[in-house]
């Protein structure tokens, strides 16, 4: 039971980052492989304002969100959008987002140094006992936040006019454009929110492990795996994928050692890709020729 509880909590962190992938994929059919660096950017932005005593903690967390969000929107406009102009088969954005990852990593390292820095913003110390498992309160907040944000995104996409525009762009950007909806604006907004979420995760995660340029890199593989398992086309997907990946990797780690944990999670990805390539909650896209 302990492995299950810890796995679910850890899965929450991965789910929060996986939501970044899902959001951009739904609206722009692109993935930002620099998400890990946006995690670090959010964390360091929060540290940069941590000495501003007049700004309450939620404000500092918001700075972390906004810094990553604004840079995310700019990256979409100038480094993703120009490389998606030649139709669905234009995947130059793959290279440009990987390049963004390298550039951001080096910039952050040069400015902040390679060592982890302590972050007390939104730090919650202590552990709670859940079904016999000691769980860090900080981790619990991250997991809870993943659930709340996922539900919020689902409500927004299904019940609001903004969501309607997102769904329209997702299904047919050309027709949505004819109806007065700007796919570019929707894409930029998606990147704004998605990278903001990565920054938010960075602020909260840094309170546990410290902020470092590579803090997001180690989460990247698991987050992509979670997004694929749940389905890149479903906002529910990260929650299910995170739970499955987290529990499976923890149970494997408990049973056979830590080295098998990540391996088990990645084996799950392979199984899902073989059995249901669109992900467990993704919908198969059929194209009429």
């Amino acid at each position, binding site marked *: 039971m302990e492995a299950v509880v810890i796995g679910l909590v850890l899965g929450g962190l991965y789910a929060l980052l996986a939501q970044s992938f899902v959001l951009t994929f739904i609206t722009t059919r692109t993935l930002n492989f620099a998400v890990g660096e946006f995690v670090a950017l959010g964390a360091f932005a929060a540290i940069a304002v941590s000495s501003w005593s007049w700004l309450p903690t939620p404000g500092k967390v918001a700075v972390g969100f906004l810094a990553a969000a604004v840079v995310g929107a700019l990256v979409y406009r100038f480094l993703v959008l120009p490389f998606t102009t030649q139709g669905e088969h234009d995947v130059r954005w793959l290279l440009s987002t990987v390049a963004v990852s390298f550039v951001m990593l080096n910039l952050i*390292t040069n400015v902040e140094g390679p060592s982890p*820095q302590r972050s007390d913003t939104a730090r919650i110390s202590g552990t709670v006992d859940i079904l016999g498992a000691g769980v860090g309160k900080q981790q619990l907040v991250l997991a809870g936040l993943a659930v709340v944000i996922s539900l919020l995104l689902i409500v927004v996409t299904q019940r609001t006019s903004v969501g309607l525009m997102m769904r329209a762009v997702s299904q047919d950007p050309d027709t949505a454009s004819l109806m007065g909806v700007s796919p570019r604006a929707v894409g930029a907004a998606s990147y704004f929110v998605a990278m903001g979420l990565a920054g938010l995760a960075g602020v909260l995660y840094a309170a546990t492990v410290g902020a470092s340029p590579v803090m997001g890199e180690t989460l990247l593989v698991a987050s992509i795996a979670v997004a694929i398992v749940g389905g890149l086309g479903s906002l529910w997907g990260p929650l299910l994928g995170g739970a499955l990946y987290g529990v499976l990797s923890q149970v494997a780690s408990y049973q056979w050692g*830590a080295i098998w944990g990540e391996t088990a999670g990645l084996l799950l990805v392979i199984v899902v890709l073989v059995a249901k390539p669109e992900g467990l909650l993704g919908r198969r896209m059929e194209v009429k020729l």
Partner: protein
Amino acid sequence: MKIWSSPSRSAIKLAALATTASLVLAACGGGSDDEASGKADADGIITVKLGVVGPKTGPASLYYEYMAQDFEAFSDDFEEQYGVKFDVVSEDDQASPEETARAVSKLINEEGVHAILGPPLSGNALQVADTVQRSGVPWLLAGPNADEIINYETQPNWAFQTNFTNQQIMSILGERLWADDAKVGIVFSGDGFGQSNLDQLKLWAEANGHELTVEETIQPGAADANAIVKRLEDAGVESVFMGITQGADTATVTRSMEQAGYAPATVMTTGTILTNYKDVAEPSQWENIQIVDPRNFLEGGDKWVLDQVQEATGDAPAIPTNNISTYAMLDIYAQAVKEVGDASDKEAVRQAIEDIKTVHIGPDLTIESPFSADDHKLYTDDPATWFTYGFDEDFNLVNLGTAAECLESGC
């Protein structure tokens, strides 16, 4: 007792350090090849072309920074003391085996360096061990701890280690860990350093009739170590050794220990905890941790080196253990070059290193005749010469006595 202040966190200071370090290395390394002939000039100064390999960029760049700090702090001292000037030719190995192989090859074949300092990471050093040995260039290993890097069956051997080795630390720690027939577990990082720790601990255990109860690996940057801790706890492990390269990963383990309420009687690790640990851990997580090291960080020559680095660079020593071992190595090499009078006579310089009488660490610490043909390690595994340290609430080191004393009466 505080021995050196916490590193500055401001971006400006870091940028200033990076710039200063670059300028120092550029100044040292930017000299013309003509100047670095390895022979004495008109003023009697011997300029040595010293190849320096390490991760200048990337997440492990602290392992390059400590060398840059030492050059910044001590280059003038060595020139004044021995008449030897270091013309540094630095190569970035990006902490990867492939880049290390490229960097070492370039230094040997294209730059024609007189000696090579680095790489600092055991795994990368292992990767190029044969290459350097074949090249016949004095190999100054101030960072890596893996014993496997030096193959004494190949003579004459060109590599020298001024850090302690993993075999040595296991000799010191073994009896402590297995005291009262305790069950022992190891958590080691998934790299050359961690693997060497595991191998040497197992060898010691086997040779002394013990068994390692649990072996767990932690990947760099792991998000948690709950499963690792749970497996240690379930196996009834009472003594834990952490052979982990990065202090931040050590913090992940101790955080999970606290979270699980797991408090083994003995928790030992190495000086790597002095890097990257404090800022991401809490006092309650380090209160039971002890380290052993052959250096006295709190007084004498070892402390002097650390203080000088702090004073010269304005920042804390990047990796205190390696700052000291690099100083010792540069002292050894500079003495050898001075004695031979020609750095390009590598065979003679290698022999002079092997025959060195006195190694100086700071003004008042000396180590006598440390090397022989089949022993290129600066330190020994005599517990009476090793120190055991704990930590106070502010993570300042507390000397608990020699390793021998701690074995006898507990610490």
